[in-house]
């Protein structure tokens, strides 16, 4: 009976927790943007006129197809992250996109119209070198894959291997390229360093080596990289560029006894630049064109032609950043991108045959001054009706933006692919509108007489009234227009805080060094700023120094960028609403910075003080005005910081001295030979805890141990053997270095995901013994009495807290984890768990509660404790992103909104997803489907009924009096 009752209670509880999205709410508060990453290979599908597509392969191991008209994704295939799924090459023919992935591990063919997998072949082991489409008799039938020691030929239609051959002398010869020109031969080119070129000819039909010759062309340079500096042009002539002699070597491949020719060119090579050759082979079944580009410097290209064994320059392009060939029908054109002025570039078409410029083919590209330089150029040429050549260009810039342009310079679409790699983000409140600021300003001003105050109040009320009437008028005006015409365009000028502060500015920092300001309501990129000279592996730390609350001071964000190699850091100070660089000059940091610390102290202009700790443990303050330094001197004895050196396994705590130097006050060493520190997490600075304790079943209080200085340190054993591996969790006070609690999970392994909030720590690990993922929760309580209810000082806490722990089985591995956050902390907490499947699970913290009893008692029921069950459920209605999967979710950011019930959530990874969650339902908002009509009609009805009955009663009374 008791069991039945607990079951019922449990069911009831679960039902009350369900908060899935209704069908009509889809896309109302949430949005998702899908990205592909930096483009490595791009092809235009141009065979069928009707369905044009753009096929891309990117550095995020993605093959995708874009709609060239809108830039939207047609389809996207995401492979494994990391080197295992790395795309080595993308070949495109007809409807098939052939991809070699994982350093020659797999050969795949994708159907380009729907993104279905045609076939997949596992290749022989060996590192991948090159792949090429092979055609015979004017039709492309095969794919040749060159590996370190083998070359294999596969059918394009089904992927089956036609033949595979081992290459002779593969340990001495560095084979580098494979080439075919439509005949029955396949050439494999290799280099023996400092010696000679090796050319092996295979018969396409049976893979037999028909000839093998070593050319005596002697190259003076060290190691030859064929693909960069040698290439095949025209009717099988190998051309190699030599930087030291400034000459080109020619070698006919097909002749029986190849004789190298050397031809010097009267061209200047930029200092220290290795010449690059660029050729085009429009049809794999035919030989390449006799024309090719030779790049002689970063902005110098020459179009050369090979005719009758003689090279002649057709046209010299300087300055020209990028060149590309494009073919349509029988015509091949060369596109050249050259700088026009500081902010614009132009692309022009030249006839490949003659080097003559084609008329009216210039496309002007306006470069964003806050963007990067063009890096790659892909040209899609097509024949117009009058037989002239038209074209569109895809330009990729350094900041991973891809822009698709058409003549005469109209941007068809732009994709910000840097957003596929968001590193860190913050959400900033939007500024108040003019009228709101007016009101706020009124309260801020000093009082100057009663009459003046009244006048001021009246005037501001008048302004509010005016704004309201204007708003009503606009509503009325818009209501008359058809709905499709009404557009609520968000621009940077119209940005204003909404009533409940639900719309915020998302400041995102990407790995490429580009910063974005995105409107959280619509997902529109409102500003972007590219930071040049950011190293690829730089570390970023974003801090909000001044919020929007201090009108008229503009909000201020500071980004700390640390170069991993030199250790030197730079500060970028900017306005998070407009993205503009601030006028404030940050301090120059001459020494490597170890950590930063944002203090709650404020300068006169309300910017929080940022302390930067360098490798000599000296502190630099920013801003460092007199006021700040004085405040720091006063507060110095209460400012502590800790540093964790994972390589030495050392945690050290420091205290600030009055002269901004520091003294070491504690040190904890976790031996790095046994275990290594993988994560350290403190509490979030903007977290509020409303309730200081938990109400027990007997209505006494169990007070929470809310130590704001508590750190959760997670270690993993160095020994990864299944029996001996372990995971350690240490709770350390960051001020005193006191180890508050220590837990070791035996036979457990990482990766560990950790959330530390309020008085609890939740972590997830892999149980190596039972082969499953497990959640563990630690909760700290002070007991039934508070030691000191007014102040919390780590230096005066004699009693250790009571620690409770419980573990649960979780049926999935997880990618990331974060806790919801609300304005006052009244709303119950949920854990947001990013799953590898792309779903984001909103798991009530109630399920992760170490006080869950094994047997339900009267008291535990009173407390609403769910009886302990080892399995943690995953309910599909807990997925906050329903079917909008967030691929490769890497981080979840939560921010409070103006409504206590609502928490804003941004999940980022390859995609970006933004939504709102209501962990305790919307207790402070009327429901979406609230029946205003019914309620108001009932109200009005009752009101009129009262009026009428009153009148009737009067009449009746009067009549009775007359009687």
């Amino acid at each position, binding site marked *: 009976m008791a069991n039945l009752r607990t079951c019922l209670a449990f069911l009831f509880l679960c039902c009350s927790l369900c908060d899935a999205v209704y069908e009509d709410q889809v896309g109302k508060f949430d949005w998702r943007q899908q990205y592909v990453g930096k483009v490595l290979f791009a092809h235009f599908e141009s065979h069928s006129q009707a369905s044009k597509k753009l096929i891309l392969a990117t550095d995020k191991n993605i093959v995708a197809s874009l709609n060239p008209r809108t830039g939207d994704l047609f389809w996207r295939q995401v492979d494994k992250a990391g080197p295992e799924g790395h795309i080595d090459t993308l070949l495109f023919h007809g409807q098939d996109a052939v991809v070699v992935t994982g350093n020659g591990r797999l050969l795949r063919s994708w159907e380009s119209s729907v993104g279905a997998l045609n076939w997949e072949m596992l290749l022989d082991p060996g590192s991948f070198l090159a792949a090429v489409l092979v055609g015979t008799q004017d039709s492309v039938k095969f794919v040749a894959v060159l590996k370190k020691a083998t070359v294999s030929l596969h059918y394009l239609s089904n992927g089956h291997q036609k033949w595979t051959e081992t290459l002779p002398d593969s340990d001495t010869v560095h084979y580098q390229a494979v080439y075919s020109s439509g005949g029955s031969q396949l050439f494999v080119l290799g280099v023996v360093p400092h010696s000679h070129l090796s050319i092996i000819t295979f018969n396409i039909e049976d893979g037999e080596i028909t000839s093998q010759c070593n050319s005596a062309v002697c190259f003076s340079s060290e190691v030859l990289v064929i693909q960069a500096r040698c290439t095949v042009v025209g009717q099988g002539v190998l051309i190699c560029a030599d930087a030291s002699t400034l000459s080109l070597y020619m070698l006919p491949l097909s002749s029986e006894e190849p004789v190298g020719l050397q031809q010097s060119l009267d061209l200047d090579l930029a200092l220290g630049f290795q010449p690059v050759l660029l050729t085009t082979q429009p049809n794999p079944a035919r030989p390449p064109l006799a024309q090719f580009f030779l790049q002689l410097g970063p902005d110098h290209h020459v179009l050369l032609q090979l005719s009758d064994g003689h090279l002649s320059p057709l046209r010299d392009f300087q300055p020209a950043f990028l060149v590309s060939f494009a073919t349509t029908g029988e015509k091949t054109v060369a596109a050249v991108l050259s700088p026009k002025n500081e902010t614009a570039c132009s692309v022009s078409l030249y006839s490949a045959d003659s080097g003559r410029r084609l008329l009216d083919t210039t496309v002007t590209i306006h470069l964003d001054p806050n963007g990067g330089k063009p890096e790659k150029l892909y040209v899609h040429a097509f024949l117009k009706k009058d037989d002239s050549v038209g074209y569109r260009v895809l330009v990729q810039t350094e900041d991973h933006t891809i822009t698709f342009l058409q003549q005469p310079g109209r941007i068809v679409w732009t994709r910000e692919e840097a957003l596929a790699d968001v590193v860190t983000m913050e959400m900033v409140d939007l500024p108040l509108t003019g009228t709101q600021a007016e009101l706020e300003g009124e309260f801020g001003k000093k009082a100057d007489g009663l009459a003046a105050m009244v006048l001021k109040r009246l005037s501001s009320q008048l302004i509010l009234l005016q704004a309201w009437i204007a708003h009503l008028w606009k509503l009325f005006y818009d209501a008359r227009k058809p709905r499709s015409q009404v557009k609520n365009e968000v621009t940077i000028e119209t940005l204003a805080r909404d009533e409940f502060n639900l719309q915020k500015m998302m400041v995102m920092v990407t790995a490429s060094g580009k910063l974005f300001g995105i409107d959280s309501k619509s997902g529109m990129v409102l500003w972007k700023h590219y930071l040049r000279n950011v190293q690829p592996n730089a*570390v970023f*730390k974003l801090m909000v120094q001044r919020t929007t609350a201090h009108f008229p001071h503009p909000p201020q964000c500071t980004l*700390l960028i*640390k170069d991993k190699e030199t250790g030197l*850091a730079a500060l970028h100070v900017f306005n998070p609403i407009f993205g503009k660089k601030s006028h404030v000059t940050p301090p120059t940091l001459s020494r490597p*910075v*170890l*950590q*930063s*610390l*944002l*203090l*709650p102290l404020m300068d006169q202009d309300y910017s929080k003080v940022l*302390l930067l*700790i360098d490798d000599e443990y000296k502190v630099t303050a920013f801003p460092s005005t007199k006021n700040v330094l004085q405040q720091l001197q006063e*507060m110095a004895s*209460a*400012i*502590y*910081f*800790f*540093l*964790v*050196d*994972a390589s030495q396994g050392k945690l050290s705590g420091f205290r600030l001295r009055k002269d901004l130097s520091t003294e070491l006050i504690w040190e904890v060493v976790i031996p790095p030979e046994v275990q290594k*520190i993988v994560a*350290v997490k*403190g509490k979030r600075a903007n977290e*509020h*805890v*409303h*309730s*200081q*304790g938990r*109400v*027990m079943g007997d*209505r*006494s*209080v169990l007070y929470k141990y*809310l130590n*704001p*200085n508590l750190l959760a340190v997670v270690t993993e054993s160095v020994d990864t053997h299944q029996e001996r591996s372990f995971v350690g969790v240490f709770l350390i006070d*960051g*001020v005193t270095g006191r180890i508050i609690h220590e837990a070791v999970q035996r036979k457990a392994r990482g990766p560990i995901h950790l959330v530390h909030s309020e008085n609890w720590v939740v972590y997830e690990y892999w149980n190596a013994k039972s082969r499953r993922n497990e959640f563990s929760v630690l909760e700290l309580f002070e007991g*039934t009495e*508070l030691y*000191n*209810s*007014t*102040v*919390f*000082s*780590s*230096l005066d806490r004699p009693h250790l807290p009571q620690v409770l722990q419980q573990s649960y089985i979780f049926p999935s591995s997880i990618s990331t984890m974060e806790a919801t956050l609300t304005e006052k902390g009244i709303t119950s907490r949920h854990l947001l768990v990013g799953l590898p499947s792309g779903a984001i699970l909103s798991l009530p913290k109630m399920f992760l509660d170490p006080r869950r009893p094994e047997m339900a008692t009267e008291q535990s029921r009173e407390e609403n404790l769910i009886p302990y069950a080892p399995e943690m459920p995953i309910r599909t209605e807990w997925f906050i992103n329903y079917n909008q999967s967030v691929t490769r979710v890497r981080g979840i950011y939560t921010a409070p909104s103006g409504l206590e019930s609502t928490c804003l959530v941004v999940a980022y990874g390859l995609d970006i997803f933004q939504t709102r969650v209501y962990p305790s339902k919307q207790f402070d908002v009327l429901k979406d489907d609230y029946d205003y009509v019914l309620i108001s009609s009932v109200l009005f009805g009752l009101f009129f009924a009262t009026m009428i009955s009153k009148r009737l009663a009067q009449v009746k009374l009067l009549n009775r009096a007359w009687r």
Partner: protein
Amino acid sequence: MASPGGHGGGAVSTRGGGGTRRMKWALELSLGNTRQFPVPSCRSRGDRQSSQGDTLYPIGYSDKPVPDTSVQEADRNLVEKRCWDVALGPLKQIPMNLFIMYMSGNTISIFPIMMVCMMAWRPIQALMSLSATFKLLESSSQQWLQGIVYLIGNLLGSALAIYKCQSMGLLPTHSSDWLAFIEPPQRMEIMGGGMVL
């Protein structure tokens, strides 16, 4: 307290068959006390209008009977009894209240809450109108004793209501009831840092 006999202020005259048979019966409201001033019942309907003049009383005549001011022993006993009734009223209600309390249970829902409210409100109301009740008891000889009994009864009633509130958990007597008012403690140290970047 004592009132004269229960003679009504009117007479119903039923007329058999004499005179005009216009009405079966009529109520003569204008008649005085029939005991002292009998009215002939044979009065005809026709001169009713003029009968107003007949009820003119002599000068010095009072329509109301003069109360009998002499208090008799039996009456005094009656007063005492009545006063005790009033004083013991609240105490008598207590068993009834106990029964209701038992029946309504300790769950917090609209019905038990209504019961508790009623139980609490009645003694409070009674205590507020204590002076009026005392005035009522003035005539009794044991006025003070009765007053105290009345007071105790009401206090017991309200104590019962408080006990009920307590057992329902409506009284803020536990530390958990004051939990929401505890301010978060002020932080004495500022701490930050992290992994070496």
